[in-house]
């Protein structure tokens, strides 16, 4: 039954930090070969979940299996087979790009005869060949982020964990990284990516799990999530605040799902409103609508 075994399987995982429960009964199954997006607002428990997959955080309850290894006992074998790209830049700022890749090729047990080629390949991934011998401290933010990704891919892992891969990056660098992640998926690498950017999840993930308060509250393809939780269409109604407040009261009374969307009230599942609908602009529902409907939280 090996071929149907999940790359990641979490069952009933709980993690508490003092009085705070960061992960609260999490069940998560990531099948091999997909790009899986863990989407949630800040503080939903995404980073804690990511750290548990490398056994840098230990679960208080539940079971964790990664690539067929049971954590935390077999975490080292699991870490050997996967690559990790952290949210915070933890590159060794005193080394050069090439030296960092050398060290990690060694740590990941890349055979000596293949190490040189692995480092060159990673430099190409990071598009850093011309700056290979520059000390990391002197590289730009975008270059460093690309190097972080390349460091996690040095040993051609069968699975990669990307924790908020594009947080705080400018749009151009974000595009570059998205292309890189797309390429991984095309190569059949399993990707687990946490993000709080809706667009990122929509653009990259085959499957999105929406995480809130330490557990998964919805899961599916982006289009499934949209149709299930926001319907086909959204009606955006603009107007003075008093009118919008009245509309919200009416929507609540009639049980229409809605959300505030900047200067407008957006009525979800607008295709079901028919003649009853107020004046407004109709547009297709998107993942952001579904996300807000699910979590009750607006995103940045």
């Amino acid at each position, binding site marked *: 039954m090996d071929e149907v075994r*999940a790359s990641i399987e979490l069952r009933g995982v709980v993690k508490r930090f003092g009085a705070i429960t960061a992960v609260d009964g999490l069940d998560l199954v990531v099948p*091999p070969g997909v790009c899986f997006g863990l989407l949630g607002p800040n503080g939903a428990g995404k980073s804690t979940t990511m750290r548990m997959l490398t056994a*840098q955080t230990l679960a208080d309850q539940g079971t964790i299996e990664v690539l067929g290894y049971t954590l935390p006992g077999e975490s080292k074998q699991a*870490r*050997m087979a996967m690559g990790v790209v952290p949210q915070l830049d*933890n590159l*060794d700022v005193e080394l050069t790009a090439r030296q960092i890749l050398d060290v990690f090729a*060694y740590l990941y047990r890349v055979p000596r005869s293949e190490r040189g080629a692995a480092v060159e390949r990673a430099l190409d991934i990071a598009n850093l060949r011309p700056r290979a011998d520059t000390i990391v401290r002197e590289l730009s933010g975008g270059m460093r982020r690309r190097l972080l990704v390349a460091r996690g891919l040095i040993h051609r892992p069968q699975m990669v964990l990307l924790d908020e891969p594009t947080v705080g990056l400018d749009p151009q660098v974000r595009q570059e990284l998205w292309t890189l992640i797309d390429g991984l998926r095309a190569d*059949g690498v399993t990707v687990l990516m946490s993000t709080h950017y809706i667009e990122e999840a929509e653009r990259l993930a085959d499957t999105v799990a929406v995480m809130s308060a330490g557990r998964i509250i919805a899961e599916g393809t982006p289009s499934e999530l949209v149709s299930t939780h926001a319907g086909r269409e959204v009606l955006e109604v603009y107007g003075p605040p008093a009118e919008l407040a009245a509309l919200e009261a009416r929507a609540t009374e009639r049980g229409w799902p809605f959300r505030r969307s900047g200067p407008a009230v957006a009525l979800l599942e607008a295709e079901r409103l028919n003649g009853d609908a107020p004046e407004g602009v109709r547009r297709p529902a998107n993942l952001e609508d579904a996300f807000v409907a699910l979590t009750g939280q607006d995103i940045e």
Partner: protein
Amino acid sequence: MTAMEQSAKAPVRRGRRVHRLEPAALGGVMMRDVVLFKRYWKATTFSSVVQPTIYLLAFGLGFGSLVKTVGTVKYVEYVATGVVATAVLFSSAFPGMFNTFIRWKFQRTYDALLAAPVDVEELVTAEILWISIRAGVYGLAPLFVGFAFGLDPTWGMLLVPFIGFITGVGFAGFGVLIAAVAKTIDNFNYVTSAVLTPMFLVAGTFFPISSLPPVLRTIAKFNPLYHCVQLVRDVSLSIYDSADLVHLAVLVAFALLMWRLAIWQLQARLID
């Protein structure tokens, strides 16, 4: 390989067995130390060599004009061999404290290493190993300076790097332990002034502990640095005695204890 083949293969458990303290993990961690050392060796060597040399000159020449011998040993020989332990202490305890704290808290290097197949035990062991190898070598510096002031080379001095290494493991481990429990890097000041400085003065480096009041003399015997001083002096001046086995045993015990304590305490803080 197609995506299907790869994904079908992906979850198959491979038979690789892992061990504790694997060479690839230790070597990888030390590799970065070596790279950095190649870049900074001048500054590191300068501070590790110059400081004991100044002690040697100040005490050896300054004091030496008043004190000619301690027991049967010429004072310059007494100080030159004693300062070996000082060099080892400074080049192991300080890197243990500062490197650990900076790499862990400021540079987050340890976070990156622990996401790779490296355990805390391997990480700490590799850092301590590297520091102690360096400390063992730097421990020779005072002897070379001593040669210029009339210290005679002996075969026994070839043992000094090993003694320095064992002592270095203890003090590097002590440094890592302090870094693990310190709240801020400023806390190191307390350790430096309240622990390391008295330790270095009450170790029989510049004067024999027999000249101390009985209470301090007893305390000094619990000072690992005292045992390092005695052992280095005895092997360097070929005055072997059965107490040397006790000195060695204390140093080995100190090294093992600090090594394990450092791993235990850092593990508790790196893995939450």
